């Protein structure tokens, strides 16, 4: 399973990568922003994208919108990662077309299983 992580925080990307790769035995690619993420999604065709919400220049919702409007990436499931754990925020993000929302801080030991569970459920 190939997962694309889009997050402007290098450290978060590294932790997520370690959790998904070492614990979840997944193939992981990452991007440090929305534009790079879209490009890598087109090129790499990942099975799912973990997308940070708050990013400079192109934030999570804008990136999601671009991904969904791009026929090459429209079918890739997107899971948001957010530090805002409010129910209304989670609902709002889901309504934008995300498969689910995972909250920060996440446990890298459980991240892979959480991603798998979301993908299997949907």
């Amino acid at each position: 399973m190939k997962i694309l992580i889009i997050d402007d925080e290098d450290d978060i990307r590294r932790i997520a990568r370690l959790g998904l790769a070492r614990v979840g035995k997944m193939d992981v690619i990452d991007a440090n922003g929305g534009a790079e993420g879209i490009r890598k999604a087109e090129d790499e065709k990942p099975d799912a994208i973990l997308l940070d919400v708050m990013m400079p220049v192109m934030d999570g919702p804008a990136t999601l919108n671009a991904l969904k409007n791009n026929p090459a990436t429209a079918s890739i499931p997107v899971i948001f990662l957010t530090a805002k754990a409010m129910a209304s925020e989670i609902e709002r993000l889901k309504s934008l077309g995300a498969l689910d929302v995972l909250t920060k801080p996440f446990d890298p030991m459980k991240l892979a299983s959480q991603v798998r569970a979301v993908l299997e459920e949907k």
Partner: protein
Amino acid sequence: MIFSTPSYDIEEKDLHAALNAVVFESLFPISGGLGIIYLVISIGHVLLLPASLAPVMVSVALVTAGLLFGLRYLLRRKPISVRWSHPLGAFIAGLVLLNSLLHLYFLSDPQQTTNLLLLIIGVGCFFLSVRWLALIIGATVVGWLLIAWQALPSQSWIHFGFALFEAVALSVLVHGVRIKIFRRLEGLRMRDRLRKAELEGALIASDESRRNVEDSKHKLENTVQALQASQTYSQSIISNMLVGLIITDELGVIESVNPAVEKIFGYSHEELIGQHLKLLMPQPGTKKDREQFLKHAYLRSIGRITEWEGRRKSGEIFPFELSLFEFHTLEGRHFAGNIKDVSERREVDRLKKEFISTVSHELRTPLTSIRGSLSLLAAGVLGELPEEAQEVVTIAERNSVRLIGLINDILDLERLESGKLEMHFDVLEMAAILEKSVESVRGLAQQQEIALEVENTETKVYADGDRLVQVMVNLLSNAVKFSPEKSAITVTAEQKDRCVEVRVKDRGRGVPAEHRELIFERFRQVEASDSRQKGGTGLGLAICKAIIEQHNGIIGVESEEGEGSTFWIQIPSDHKSYYEFVQQSDRSSSNLTKERS
């Protein structure tokens, strides 16, 4: 104005007493005068009477004179009631009658009848009582008849009898005239006295009235002064209050405002008086709106502090706190509103919350890295660590989890207090809530061999399931943390009126009385070291309280130090009760919390 002339009716007994007094006044000069006359007569008897008669007649005259002087002395020295005036007068007349009859008898001279004639006329002039006059005249006539029958030649009877008749007639005539005159005079005098007494009474009353008026005036002046002082006192307080005070009539029309209101709303005193309160609200509205407004404000704000939005003259909308109370005066019903501009406070609150939210949010990002790194290290994902390094990393991971918990709690509390935490209410089985909650703490309880005893319940609550579970987990984990090993924790849920009471009883050290209210405040724990030794952030019970209050319920604790604690919550059992609790809790929830806790 027509004044009625008062009639002064004289009672007969009073007039009789007055006439007695007139007679009484005559007794003293008459007894003295007659006494002197009888002394002179005694001398005359010595000089003129034959030796055979002189001793008797002189003796009689002297005795008479002595008795008269004695009477005079008595009248001067002793207080004698006027009731005795006629009897004493009769006594004097009797003495004169006795002398006259003795002269007539011993001298057998019809000429001596003249003494009796004088006596009859004299008593007519003296007495003011028909009865006593009749007695003396009767006695005189009878005495004369007896002596005349025995000692006087018959030819003199006609002449002196006729003279007696004339004397009696004259005496009666004089007596009648005198009675009439004296009755009238005494009547006038008495009426005069009564009038005078009445006038004096009126004068006294008038004086008293004047004094009363002066007293009243004095008191009134004092009262006015006290009132002015009190008014100045109150006015000074009202004028210098930082809180605005608006007085309206029962329709909400502004009657008065203090300077703070002018400052808060930006209107001058003159601009506000006579205007409806709605002028100060965001939407002035129609007449009907204005009427509805006061009814709404009355129900909402009477006797308690509520928050409203106001509109300044500049058009700026701002929050203020309002507390209404009503009072009554002769002019009718009034309302007074205490107004406090809380815009600055709200702004500070908003900034504070924004700060907490931002800080908490910004903390999450680095914490994600820290916690994630430590988890990976501790789990050995990145390779086995030396024993001591493993221990240190485990400590660091545990504390990073604790720090995340603290941030989550702070965010939860901030959202609860700002009303931003969304609640999804439904009617739920309490048994399911308890089962889920107990399951969450079962592992922790088992570590300490603590039994979790949950009594069966069929109660239902109107609640947000996740939040209620959060509360129960918090109460249960607290109970586990503070229970001795191998003890038991009992959980019960019972229907009480329109709410369900859930009780969590532990056998721990208990909560000292002085901490029972404080522990529901943020960062308050019984022992300062509890957060380190027992874990927890010090926010758990504050969050529980906020959540329960969002349910319009109440939370409290009963405890005996050293014998455990029972934390309890009461929440509405259905939708209807929830809304009834909304109204009641405004009035009494805080009191109930205090009573119970």
